[in-house]
Every structure is written in structure tokens, then in C-alpha cells.
């Protein structure tokens, strides 16, 4: 029998799943590599597990929303990600959607 905490945690994860993609896309308006992206998200209060972040970056790249390139920084090769043109357009639409959902839900909450 799931406890109230289990139910809350499962619903919270479900609620966060879509918003994390929005946060990642928004942070990649400027070029970042995986670790610096995670730190940037963490600094604004969005915690994301690396195990979920790195595969997500690859999926978004495979969908054409991100572009990436390997470059050397601090004497180490790193993979830098940035929004593609298509990614910018999708982010703009998703942001509108987010604002609309937020505006509709806020009076209800």
C-alpha cells in the first residue's frame, strides 16, 4: 500500500518531468556543457539528476532541438550544447504554453 509520501513523490515527479525539459532548453540559449548546465540549473533552484540530464540532452539533440560540439576547455575535452534554430522556436512555443497553463491554473490554486 503506497503511503501519502509515496503518492506525493510520484505526483511531484510527474509534474516536474515536463518542466525540466523547459528549464534545460531555456538554459541552453547560451552554450554550456553538461556539468555546467546542471550547476546553472541548480543555482536557480532547479535540481536535476545527472542520470536523467545527460540522456535528455542526447534525446533533445536527436530531435533536432539542440546542437552540440566537442571542444577542449580546462585541458579536457567537453561536449558543449546549445539551442538550435528549431529548438529556439520550440522553446518559444513551449514557454507560451507554460504561461497559458500557469495563468489558467493560478486562479484555481
Amino acid at each position, binding site marked *: 500500500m503506497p503511503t501519502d509520501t509515496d503518492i506525493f513523490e510520484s505526483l511531484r515527479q510527474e509534474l516536474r518531468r515536463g518542466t525540466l525539459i523547459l528549464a534545460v532548453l531555456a538554459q541552453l540559449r547560451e552554450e554550456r556543457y553538461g*556539468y555546467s548546465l546542471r550547476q546553472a540549473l541548480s543555482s536557480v533552484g532547479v535540481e536535476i539528476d*545527472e*542520470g*536523467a540530464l*545527460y540522456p535528455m540532452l542526447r534525446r533533445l539533440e536527436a530531435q533536432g532541438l539542440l546542437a552540440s560540439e566537442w571542444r577542449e576547455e580546462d585541458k579536457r*575535452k567537453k561536449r558543449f550544447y546549445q539551442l538550435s534554430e528549431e529548438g529556439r522556436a520550440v522553446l518559444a512555443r513551449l514557454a507560451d504554453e507554460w504561461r497559458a497553463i500557469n495563468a489558467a491554473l493560478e486562479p484555481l490554486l
Partner: protein
Amino acid sequence: MSDLVDRYLGAVAALLPKAQRQDIVAELRDLILNRVEDAEAQRGRPLDKREMEDLLREIGHPIAVAGRYGSARALVGAEIYPFWLFGVKVLLAIAALAAAIPTGVALLTAHGDARLVVRTIQDFIPTALSLIGAATLVAAAIERGWIKTEGFRRWKVSELPRASDSREWFVKSRFDGLFELVVMLLFIGWWTGVVASPADNVIKTRGGEAFLQVSSVFQTLYWPILTLAVVQVVSSLLLVVKPGWTVARNLLEIVGAVGGVALVWVLWSAQPLVTVLAPAASEAGLENLQRTLDLSLEITLWVVAAISLTKVAVHGWRLLRGR
């Protein structure tokens, strides 16, 4: 320390697709080294072996990490799952009935005992697991688009079963149809000799063994009986698969019932249908047994005729009412 990182990355790499392996491992290595640098900066010293183990464990088990880079699709997704579950229930119900009916017949005719029940259960378990496996493979193939299911998306509300009305008589549920289907398939299997009979034609009596000799009329009626059974199978199948096709089903039921009446008529005039042969029994005893058997079969024929005529009336009325 780098030995632990290499070992960890080696374990992840072994589970990744070849084409992406190098790329993903290089990125993971960078992530790990960044984490190590941060942890060392916090402590002001290099990490020891235990701390390194903890850090890698935090990143995740190699199977979990590599798995996240694979296809995110579940074996059977949320959309297909209810259909999978329904299919599994139907398959298990068919398998259970197919296993239970012959066993039940064998037990009722005193040709089986508790060992038969145990054997039936033992045989059912691997069959059930195989059916669940087969259903899962089909569902996984549908999930991945290897099996096209466009026809399913064009389903019609009018083809769904009618809402049940408890005041209406002789209304069969889908489960009734399924039960009927299994029974008729077993009957066809027995009639055609594909399935062995759970009972033989020997009766053990106090006076020794008695043999049942079946009338040759059944050989003459081999094809008509088989045809009627097939008609019933198609009707039951329609009830299970296309419950909304009421016109076709009513027609089949009427054809089957009219055939049933005709069959009763032919069998009635061909009596005795079964003759008892008991070399060791007394003449009076044998006559008594034969009379009891004849009476039982006459009652059976009356019942079959009554059911068939009722079916003609009920399904004819439904056909006229478009129900």
C-alpha cells in the same frame, strides 16, 4: 583512483550501443572528473578509494546508467497495456476452460482422480506462462510499430456489446460466448478425433463390464453434426470478437437451432441411439439398463428440441427488432 573510473566506465560501455559508445563514455568521463574536482576542492585533498566508490555509486549502477541512454519506450506502453491485459485474461480463460472441461468430464464419468486434477494444474501453469509471454511479444511488437493496428483505431461504438439489460432473457455475455467457444472447439476436436475422449465406452457395473455400442446413424450424421458445431463456433466467436454484429449472430443462431431441431428429428426416428452390451449380465438387468438409457436419451432429445425451438423464437424476434 583512475582504475575505479575506468572500471566503472568500462562496465557502462559494455552495455551501450557500439555507435554511441565512445561519445557517451567520453561525456560521462568528463562528468565524473568534474564531480571529483568539486569534491576534492571541498575537502582540500584528493578523494580516497572509499569516497571515490561512493561518488561513482551516486552516479548510478552501470546497468541503470546505460539503460537511460537506450530507447525510453516501455516494453508495453500505457496505451497498449489495457489491450495486453484484456488479451492475457481472455487467453488464460480459454486455457483454463480447455484444461478444466476435459478434467471435469473425466471426473464426472469416474475416469479420473485427484492425480488428474494435480496433473491438469501442473500442465496449465507452463501453458499460462507461455501464453502471457506470447501476448507480451505481440504487444511489444505493436508498441514498436512492427505490427500495424490501424484497424483497431477505426473501431465503432455500434460494434461494442449492448448495455446489459437484466430484464432481457437469454442474453449471453462475452464470457458465456468464450465458454461456449471452448466447449464447441473441444467437441469438434473430439468429434474429428483430434482430441482424445476423456471417457471411453465401457461402464463398470456390479455384474462386470458393460459396453456401449453407438448407433451407425451418428456416422451418417458426421458431416451435419460437424457443420452445426462449426456454425456454433462462428457464432460464439462473433459474440467474443464482434459483439455488435448482432444480425450475423442471430442468423447463425437461427441456422444452428433449425439444424438442431432437424438433428433431433433424425435421431428420434433412428432410436435406439446407444445399445448396451453386457455379456455377463442377466437378461432382465440388461433390459432394465437399456430402458433407462433409452429414456435418458429421449429426455435429452426433448430438451435439445425445446432449447432449439426457443432459440429460433428468441433470435428470430431479435432479428426482427434489430437487437
